[in-house]
């Protein structure tokens, strides 16, 4: 495991893709998960034009918030052909306010079709928060 405070790592899954993500807090975890998801897909962004989207999401619990956030990013990617590399996130009482910036997708190797709840648990450890997300591909 990477010893830095934030990061993500692809882990083995027979049929689909799985990603372990860690960060000091929930906003960091959401950001790393979004970055990791794009890395798995092999998303490459164009240099311009830069675009920004606002997301406002309420979750029942942190896991629900994480899945909804990533699902929204997948949807924008498919519908508008946009990917994101800059994240300004704030969370209060399981309400996420996000300003995400990026650019049109230049190329993408593989498509992630859905974010699943399979064995999804955000757990605390001495470094902060950690979880493993399984994606349907």
């Amino acid at each position: 495991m990477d010893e830095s405070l934030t990061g993500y790592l692809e882990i083995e899954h027979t049929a689909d893709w799985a990603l372990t993500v860690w960060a000091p807090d929930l906003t960091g975890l959401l950001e790393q998960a979004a970055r990791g998801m794009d890395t798995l897909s092999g998303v490459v962004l164009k240099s311009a034009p830069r675009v920004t989207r606002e997301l406002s999401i309420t979750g029942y619990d942190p896991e629900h918030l994480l899945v909804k956030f990533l699902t929204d990013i997948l949807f924008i990617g498919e519908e508008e052909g946009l990917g994101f590399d800059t994240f300004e996130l704030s969370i209060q009482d399981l309400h996420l306010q996000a300003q995400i910036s990026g650019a049109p997708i230049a190329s993408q190797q593989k498509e992630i079709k859905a974010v699943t709840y399979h064995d999804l648990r955000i757990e605390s450890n001495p470094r902060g928060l950690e979880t493993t997300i399984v994606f349907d591909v």
Partner: protein
Amino acid sequence: MITKKDLRKINEYEWEIPKSYRGDMLVPVRVFVSNDLLDTVLRDKSLEQAVNAATLPGLVGHVTVMPDMHQGYGFPIGGVAATRYPDGVISPGAIGYDINCGVRLLASKIPYDSAEEYLDQLASTLNAYCPSGVGGKGSVPLSEKDLDNVCLEGSRWALRKGFATEMDLRHTEEGGRLDGADPSFVSKRAKDRGRPQLGTLGAGNHFIEVDIVDRIFDEEAAQVMGLEEGNLVLQIHCGSRGFGHQICTDYVDDFQKAIHKYGIKLPDRELVCAPMNSPEGQAYMAAMHCAANYAFANRQILADHARRAFEDTLKGKVQNWHLHQVYDIAHNMGKIETHMIDGQPVKVCVHRKGATRAFGPGSPELPGEYQKIGQPVLVPGSMGTASWVLVGTEGSMAQSFGSTCHGAGRMMSRSKAKKEVRGDKLRNQLEKAGIRVRAGSMAGLAEEAPIAYKDVDAVVETVAGAKIARKVARLVPVAVIKG
């Protein structure tokens, strides 16, 4: 991890994890697997996921897993679970994101030898006519009203628009249309994803493949299906695209709350469910049927495009270039069916995720010509290996809720396959073996390398040995189109 010691051997092809294995199991797990395949199965979490599935409220009989099983998310791929109708639950995760992912087989009277010199061109034409790949857009863009009609009519919509024949619909599970679809239960987001994608193959493990009928095992059944040794056939494997994925995503999200409302406790949140007779359960059923009908129409339109590719490539060069439909079956679906349980007919919802309906001879749901032989079952192998045509049996009706296997089944992760196989090298190997390859992505091709899958022949030997299907024909590929 479950080990061999936790399984009770019933016979050479059948094992059981008893209900006593874990306190929250409501029914046992019946495992159809040979001794050889069992070692592979025990390496991943498929059996743990089957045990988790055995906790779904309202289950009857047993949860069944097929020899092509592998770890999925929530419910194992290759799993079958029947819940009592209408008070048992329906679980979107036990049906899968790609609702009504399935396979269609079209047969021809074209001998391989007469078409061999045109197969390169045929592969390129199929690739050009059948849109595929990441975010692929279709040749049949839909208005909002059109999409609603596809949801309601399925393949019948395709027939009205000139993409199908009556015989195609006759040779499609449920005639290519499920009752009870209601587009008002489908989100705007799902509709936005669905409108541009009808008539597309997508990416991942979906494909179009031209095969030769390599060997016939059941002359009578093959004759009824129009399969002749040495002739070309065509397989189409795909589903409901982003439309079905979004519907599953929406209802897995909704049901996170529903399980608390109905006091349902589950070992995995991906198994979330709601009673079929609840408002939430009814809403999902109506939406899921929309996705199922969309998938039937999708494969129908791809079949039309494939027929045009055959015509444009082979007309005037071979005697009869036409393709007739053998059958179209779903392998990710929830269906309301009646099965005999403890000697009594019981109405149930059969969840099949990576498992194929395999109704036996005499089933009233089958067209007359198939009632004598049983329902055709289509089992695609991994890329570059054999595929199989089987039929359902009395055994599948008695032992597995009229279900059997759906493919070879993965045994190696996508990341490991990419590390071990280079897409361009694999393409060259396949081409040398006489298999023309058209692929949108070399990385995607590497992930689907044959070494990532079990031996489909061993899987088929197991279901045949367990008598939950009977062998009809073996197919071998000569051209593969992948997204």
